[in-house]
């Protein structure tokens, strides 16, 4: 069911967008900060953004007013600049000064009440998505990566990937969040706020992107030594592109073409398969990220390294050098074995 006030976000968002254009140097700074939440590319973000800016501006105004009042009070009637020890100085109570409190607290209370009402209005708007989501994605936080599972009533439509989430633009998507080990927090700031992924309970949130793009996400609940390097990407794409991606993900990756790649698969299964899974092969580990269609991803190691052969080589050679304390141990591989594994992984389109 469509909620009427969801439509109201549209013109407001345009207004705020205009304001951002006015402050274009500021918006450039935002653009250079991919995790900033002072701009928005999603429906939930659009509803919250005016409130974020509103309370920020009110806060700055309050600070300026109080600072002026304090400075004014100091410079208005300055007494001595030093106090000679023990000298008696005049003491007087000419004015009670209580009006300051009544007026100041009165105005403050009105502003605070306004903020409460505004908060409640926005909260009501973002609590549930504007329309019933057609797509549900289960995201499980692990130390220190994200497992992403596309749910469906039809078991044949379910598949698992890691660290990169694809969603179609223009429709809300439901996220079910779980913590596999400790508490993590799921956050794509350009699209919406945080929701914790807690062991033993399933939290829900929703996001809707209104324009295609690659949005950065980050774990924001301290979850151990590699909390800092637990990123992810959310790729919002047109419904057509999304459908194509999804269809491709559902297939098993193509078999290796060359003997070297076959050797790579064998080595992968022997050395990596206890933790990692690749659909259609004997590698079926559940501990680490599913690597089927690895080459479709922009990054590796939970959003830390670009996904190119050189960085793949770096990562496999020394995961502990890149993410000290990560649960992936340095594999005992000869240079040849490593090269064969990389040549095989590069086929996983």
């Amino acid at each position, binding site marked *: 069911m469509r909620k009427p006030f969801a439509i109201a976000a549209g013109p407001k968002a345009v207004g705020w967008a205009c304001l951002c254009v006015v402050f274009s140097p500021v918006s450039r700074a935002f653009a250079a*900060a991919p995790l*900033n*939440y*002072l701009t928005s590319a999603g429906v939930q973000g659009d*509803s*919250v953004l005016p*409130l*974020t800016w509103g*309370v920020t501006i*009110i806060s700055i105004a*309050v600070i300026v007013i*109080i*600072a002026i009042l*304090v400075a*004014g*009070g100091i410079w208005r*009637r300055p*007494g*001595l600049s*030093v*106090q000679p*020890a*023990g000298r008696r*100085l*005049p*003491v*007087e*109570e000419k004015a009670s*000064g*209580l009006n*300051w*409190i009544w007026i*100041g*607290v009165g105005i*403050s209370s009105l502003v*605070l009440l306004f*903020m409460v009402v505004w*908060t*409640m209005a926005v*909260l009501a708007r973002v609590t549930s998505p504007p329309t019933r989501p057609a797509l549900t994605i289960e995201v499980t936080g692990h130390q220190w990566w994200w497992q992403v599972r596309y749910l469906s009533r039809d078991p044949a439509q379910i598949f698992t990937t890691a660290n990169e989430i694809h969603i179609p633009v223009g429709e809300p998507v439901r996220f079910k969040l779980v913590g596999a*080990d*400790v*508490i993590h927090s799921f956050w794509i700031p350009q699209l919406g*706020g*945080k*929701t*914790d992924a*807690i062991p*033993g*309970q399933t*939290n*829900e949130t929703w996001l809707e992107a209104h324009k295609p793009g690659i949005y950065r996400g980050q774990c*924001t609940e*301290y*979850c*151990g*030594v*590699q909390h*800092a390097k637990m990123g992810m990407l959310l790729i919002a794409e047109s419904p057509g592109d999304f459908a194509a991606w999804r269809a491709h993900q559902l297939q098993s990756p193509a078999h290796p073409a060359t003997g070297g790649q076959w050797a790579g698969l064998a080595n992968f299964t022997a050395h990596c398969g206890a933790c990692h899974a690749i659909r259609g092969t004997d590698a079926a580990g559940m501990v680490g990220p599913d690597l089927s269609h690895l080459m479709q991803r922009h990054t590796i190691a939970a959003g830390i390294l670009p996904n190119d052969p050189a960085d793949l080589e770096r990562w496999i050679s020394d995961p502990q050098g890149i993410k*000290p304390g990560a649960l992936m141990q340095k594999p005992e591989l000869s240079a040849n074995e490593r090269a064969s594994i990389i040549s095989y992984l590069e086929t996983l389109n």
Partner: protein
Amino acid sequence: MTITDYERVPTVSTDENQALADKFKRLWETKPGLAGFLSTVDHKEIGIRYIITAFGFLIAGGVEAAVMRWQLAWPGEHVLTPEQYDQLFSTHGMTMIFLYAGPILSGFSNYLWPLLLGARDMALPRLNALSYWIYLCAGIFLYAAFAFGFGPNDGWFNYVPLAARPYNAGPNIDFYALGMILLGISTTVGAINFIVTFLRMRAPGMSINRVPILIWGTLTASAANIFAIPAVSLAFFLLWMDRNLGTHFFDVPTGGSALLWQHLFWMFGHPWVYAIVLPAMGMVSDGLPVFCRRPLVGYTVVALATVATMVLGFGVWVHHMFATGLPTISLSFFSAASIIITVPSAVAIFAWIATIWTGRPVFTTAFMFFTSFIVLFTIGGVSGVMTGSVPVDWQLTDTYFVVAHLHYVLIGINVFPVVGATYFWFPKFTGRLMDERLGRWNFWTMFIGFNLGFFPMHISGLLGMPRRVYTYADGMGWDWLNLITTIGSYVFAVGVLLFLINVWKSYRRGAVAGDNPWDAPTLEWATTSPPPPYNFVVIPTVASRHPLWEDRLQQHEGEGSHVDAGLVLDHDREAIGTSSLDATPDIILRMPHDSYAPVILALAVTAFFAGLAFHAWWLAALGALVVGIDIIGWLWPERKLGETAEPAIHG
């Protein structure tokens, strides 16, 4: 009719003669040397120890912060390993929040309360000594673990399951949990002492509407601690049992709850935030008017606002948990409460501003710290309101915005008033004034450094920088902000160093202060600087809020306050017990002499906890045994204290 020594009509003296002073000195003075050091129950001695110990921990926490800021000054820095960084940020939080911010205020209040109230000591002097010794032992216990690489490494709020055995196998969390329970004992007995002292030890005539605001601040904080500490001690005890005895309170796979920890922790944690700012706000409410040469505007509403803040402070803990998936209805309630709690703070802010506007400011260093605090308090307050708004908090939480907010609260509302209070009361503590010229340098370095260092954290937070990260990647838009933060925090550290230099220099060679260098109105300034062990030769009688300004304000009742004529009470260590509201004299109290019982008890309790930590059950048993014996000895009825049949003095 038989009356006892405790019901006799005490002598009244109208002159402070030397013979009487000598007699009191013999009765109240602590023995010199190690014996006196270990056995003293003098609140001033204990207060100074608290202050010095707490500043020691402030320096330790500051060094930890400086190392972390080096690591974060540039993206991808490598001076610390992730594990080292995690222990540092956790230990830094633990140190500043538990070992500095609370105890420093206990120190000031311990020293000042009896003087402000016109009393000879706290109500329970031996408990006071115990509170300090346990604090010291808990601090050493926690830092000893840190020194061996077993400091807390799961953040100061120590969320489970990360802090549970499967994800944190080392002894780090066991030390943290036991150390926190130990520290909780200190805070609890200290809080009880403040409450009893308030109810029983005020000078005759000091009805509750005449006590300084610092008294209200520490009183409400103490009352809050009585209710808040059990939650966190319980949480840590359950965690310790989970980790060591195989219970399942927080163990999710066997039906435990991860969120239970967060509720228990924040039911304590948020009231604690107010407990470590309200006494500091009280310091400003009492100190600022002295330099504005007028009484505080709105005494009654400020006192009520202090209490109201604390009461409301128990209803906002969930704002630390907005992202945990709680139902919208409870989010709404806690969001509204978290925003509305600002109202009593606004009362205090406008009371201070009005005091400045309707007064005539004297520009001392203390005044500068107190007034700058008003602005810093406002910044920390409004950023708190922002995090109280649920949808906004879903973005702000766990980013550097919150780091900025909590440092404006803890440094702005605790450190700045404390440094100002040191400039203000240092002459009373030592008899010497602090250097005002160095004071200016100190103030401006701290003020500029603090804002330069911590204000940009708001912006790095708004630009998405998560908290508790040991490093960050290039190209996230945070590089310059972090470099500025590091530079600013180092400037701030230089400011703190100037403060310490000033303390040392003034202690050695400062100008002699006299009894009342600021011409201030309250009772602590009526005695010598530093005060004698017995505080006052005769117990003052109070007739207004400003006993030493009565000649100029003319607001007192009857013939006015007496500070040099009053009850003598010289049969032994004696104090006057007064009624809880109007402070009418009620009974003569026999005060205990110096005792080793507190220090022995503290050591025994610490041995008990160390035994638990090392699974050295014999040590735990031995500690428990000594605790039992010590408590029996402590509570053994003493005739001198009126705990046995009372000696009759009249037939």
